[in-house]
């Protein structure tokens, strides 16, 4: 299925990911080293005895050289050992395994909404560039991109949950337990997240579609008498579908970051609430683990996008 050039390109891309993962994990590891003062004292908490501090120091290998500590931390992380929460004592990996799927569910819901709404509007705007619909879409997308997600989320809560109880104001149901209720609970957060997402999709799709339709190749199609509709649907969209992939992967990453704040508005037990609460309570192992998972997710999304990219568009591989 893949030719030699594509395979070479994929190998190169995979090799490039290795230093990125190493650097990213090292940065996350170093996060705790930024703590002012003695880490062991901080981790031991208030009123800890000297013995307890020393115990933590040797237990976590804090008396070892830095690189050895990093190696041990990575080895532990690979085996799912991200140490324990300072507050509850629960293993960090257990906490993250519980909350991460919830965040992923909201993110995928929001991204699906963004694409489902953004794509038709983008096509509509591009097919009559400069028209009323186009201008309206452009204004709406400008506003959508500048909207604070958490604010629009609150306005939705006031309108659709407090004034008319169409949707629940807060809370979350796992999609594994009750898919329908999960969708119902996740709708307001997803719409709030998608408000800027759909704007982004529409705007990007419009601009790449307009650019494509203005190229010489399309002027030729027009000149040979092909109706505009079939130029747009058969040729235009095929050309921009690859761009759409980039937009979607950017959107997944951006939505992942935006969920952090929106989750707090809706009290959703996801990564966002976990990381914010852990930060406020100075529960550093949890913060570190959560950041690690977020960063690795972004790296994975980027890698998958590039792989799909080179499969969908063989020209990329030749560059």
């Amino acid at each position: 299925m893949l030719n030699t050039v594509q395979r070479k390109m994929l190998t190169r891309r995979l090799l490039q990911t290795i230093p990125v993962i190493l650097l990213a994990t090292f940065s996350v590891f170093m996060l705790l080293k930024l703590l002012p003062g003695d880490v062991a004292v901080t981790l031991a908490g208030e009123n800890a005895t000297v013995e307890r501090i020393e115990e933590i120091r040797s237990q976590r290998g804090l008396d070892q050289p830095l690189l050895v500590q990093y190696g041990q931390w990575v080895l532990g992380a690979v085996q799912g050992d991200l140490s324990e929460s300072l507050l509850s004592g629960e293993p960090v990996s257990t906490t993250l395994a519980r909350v991460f799927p919830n965040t992923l569910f909201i993110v995928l819901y929001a991204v699906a909404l963004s694409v489902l709404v953004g794509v038709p509007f983008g096509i509509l705007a591009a097919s009559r560039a400069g028209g009323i619909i186009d201008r309206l879409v452009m204004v709406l997308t400008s506003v959508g991109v500048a909207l604070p997600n958490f604010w629009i989320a609150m306005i939705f809560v006031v309108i659709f949950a407090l004034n008319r109880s169409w949707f629940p104001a807060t809370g979350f149901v796992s999609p594994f337990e009750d898919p329908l209720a999960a969708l119902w609970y996740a709708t307001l957060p997803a719409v709030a997240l998608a408000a800027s997402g759909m704007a982004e999709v529409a705007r990007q799709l419009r601009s790449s579609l307009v650019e494509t339709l203005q190229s010489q190749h399309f002027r030729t199609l027009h000149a040979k008498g092909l109706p505009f509709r079939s130029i747009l649907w058969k040729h235009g969209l095929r050309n921009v579908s690859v761009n759409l992939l980039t937009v979607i992967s950017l959107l997944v990453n951006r939505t992942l970051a935006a969920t952090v704040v929106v989750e707090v508005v809706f009290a959703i037990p996801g990564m966002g609430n976990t990381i914010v609460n852990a930060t406020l309570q100075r529960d550093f192992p949890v913060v570190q683990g959560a950041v690690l998972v977020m960063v690795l997710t972004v790296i994975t999304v980027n890698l998958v996008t590039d792989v799909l990219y080179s499969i969908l568009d063989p020209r990329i591989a030749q560059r």
Partner: protein
Amino acid sequence: MTDTPTPPPPGQPAAAMPQRIDRPGFFTRVLHWLIDDPVAAIGLVVLIVICSCAVFADQIAPYDPSLQDYAAMLEPPSAAHLLGTDDLGRDVFSRLIHGASASIYAAVLAVGVATVLGVPVGLIAGYAGGWVDEVISRILDTFLSFPAIVLAIAVTGVLGIGLTNAMLSVGIVFAPQLARLVRARALVLKQELYVEASQCFGASPGWILRRHILPNAIQPVLVQITLLMAVALLAEASLSFLGLGMQPPDPSWGSMIARAYIYAQISPAQMYAPGIAILVTALAFNTVGESLREALDPTSRH
């Protein structure tokens, strides 16, 4: 760019000052740009108003933003309190004006850090090429993988909660975006004839970067800086909303929204003003940025 002829360093060629003929002055060009694009002109006026609010908050605001008045809590808008009062009887309008300082300070700090870090790194990567470029590019990839808000939360958690720490880390995450942009420009520019000529005359890399590459790469950077201001502003609002940015009693638009949300059922109007302030400011930055992009690069016009 000032056109004062700087004496060339010893051993380096004296660059002949090209005669600029018929080039309109800076202000004439800005004026033409704003007449061509009235929406951008409105955006610029909005930004000037908001920056003035940020600088002269003490003079403009009718009340002390932290002054509590328990006789007038959660009041609706009136002549005395243009936007009403919050749950502690503080004047919302005054807090809104003072909130502009936090937002502008945060945005300038984050984007400033990003520029100071990103531009030189991008210049070096693009101009040096080879393994230097490869190493720098991987580092940039790494920092681009950190969601800005997540890293900012974590870093504030570790270094101590506060606006400055938060925005410093946002700036670090933004830096690769500028670096990539500058790198791409430097890659193209270093093959230009005038750069090669400079090299032949024995100009040092530093001199070429400062004198030839940077001035020619500055336009897209300017556009990106304007657009990043909006992103930084939204990041500040989010962090202050979470309680990790501006600390009470100092007002910030994000923390005002967070407080208003608690009383959303009693007084929903409270949360609209700060949200609209964020929206309008971010919109103004985006509008000016997009317009600058079109004005500076005629090929991007659709």
